[in-house]
């Protein structure tokens, strides 16, 4: 088995399983550990506060939008593109249709997917520059912060190059872009439960915990 079929076969399975099982474990861990060590979360559990705080922070209804609108709007757009493009890209949907699962759902017009990808890449560049240039952010930024931005955007960069043949003039890249795309996506999936990319699921738990704690005290959530 060559690297290409390994990456699109067993490794893809491994990546998806690590991603799915890993995130499930992170969620279960939170709920179980909280049972013994964060009793207030259960004692004062309130669906009302949790839904309120999640709505406020998933939608642009929070204080940060007012405080730093440019950055926050970029953050929202970045995350929307990040989730929408891989799931609804026509190329991906057709692969699900051909797969053993035979799943199918409607797809995004390719033009949209292109623009959303470019938008995501542009915002990622802004994120990196922002980190590198602001003295405030420099002091709290670790190497991992840069690395994770790169890991996150690599599948999009390679995906764009793959569908447009942007870098095909460079022989190695032209020959292996599909492999690079698959490998980078697998790397991202595997790193989600293992790094602070886990905020994709733990966001909900963290917000819920603070929503319950602050809500019951009458603070702003």
């Amino acid at each position, binding site marked *: 088995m060559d690297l290409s079929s390994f990456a699109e076969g067993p490794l893809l399975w491994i990546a998806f399983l690590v991603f799915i099982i890993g995130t499930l474990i992170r969620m279960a*861990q*939170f*709920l*179980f*550990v*909280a049972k*013994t*060590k*964060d009793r207030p*979360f259960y004692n004062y559990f309130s669906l009302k506060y949790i839904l309120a*705080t999640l709505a406020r*922070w998933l939608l642009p209804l*929070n*204080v*940060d939008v007012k*405080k*730093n609108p440019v950055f926050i709007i970029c*953050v929202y757009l970045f995350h929307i593109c990040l989730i929408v493009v891989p799931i609804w890209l026509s190329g991906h949907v057709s692969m699900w249709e051909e797969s053993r699962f035979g799943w199918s759902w409607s797809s995004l017009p390719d033009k949209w997917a292109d623009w959303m990808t470019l938008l995501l890449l542009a915002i990622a560049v802004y994120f990196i520059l922002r980190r590198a240039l*602001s*003295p*405030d*952010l*420099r*002091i*709290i*930024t*670790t190497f991992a*912060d840069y690395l994770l931005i790169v890991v996150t955007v690599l599948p999009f960069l390679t995906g764009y190059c793959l569908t447009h043949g942007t870098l095909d003039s460079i022989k190695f890249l032209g020959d292996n872009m599909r492999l690079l795309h698959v490998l980078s996506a697998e790397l991202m999936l595997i790193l989600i439960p293992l790094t*602070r990319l*886990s*905020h994709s699921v*733990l*966001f909900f*738990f*963290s*917000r819920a*915990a*603070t*929503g319950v*704690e*602050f809500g019951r005290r009458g*603070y*702003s*959530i």
Partner: protein
Amino acid sequence: MTEDVNPKAIMDFLKPKLGARLRTWIDICTHCGMCADTCHFYLASGKDPKMIPSYKVRFLRDLIKRKGRADKELLQEIYKSIYYECNMCKRCTLYCPFGIDIGFLISTLRGLLTSLGIAPEGLKKAVENYKLTGNQMAVSKEDWVETILWCEEEAAAEVVGVKIPIDKKGAKIMYTVNAREPKFYPQDIMEVAKIFTVAGEDWTVPSEKGWDDTNLAMFISDASTARMIVENTFKRAEELEVKQVAVTE
């Protein structure tokens, strides 16, 4: 690094504290910087990046990563940061997209240092006083009761009929004070006595432990003493069968 601090002591304190929230918060902070200008220490220091809340809690992550290895200098650095660069107001949490409770993380660090015997001397002394006498100024029961009687007498000279009922069972309100009042500001007690009298309230003060409503143990995250202080007040309230507990201004 000189290893003159026992890493086991540090981890023994932190491990049981590493609950779901703490662990999650240490793991998921993406260093977005939204907390920076919400901090009054940051703004008041001319936007010193070292005052960014997210930066101040780095110690916790580092200590856990290093399995508790630390030296005295690091502990001093932590001490300065968590006592003189944060007062746990939690304003940053209101602006954190993840709702990370930085005040709670700082409070955990304060608890860690307290467990290693490091805390502001004044607070340490006060907490010793609570343990021994139930109040932060180490006022004895005799002194307390005597002060109340004397305050009653003085206040009655100004407002007719002022009484400070001590241990009156079944009163509506149990009044509690800051232990600095009997020690330094008894006039505060007199003023309150006048107000209660003129308002015609049914009130009382307890003679036993529990009359000091301050809780300085909380500031050094000494949870067991903080709990004891609150329990003293609750015990008195139950004994005296009051409906409400009032605290001094």
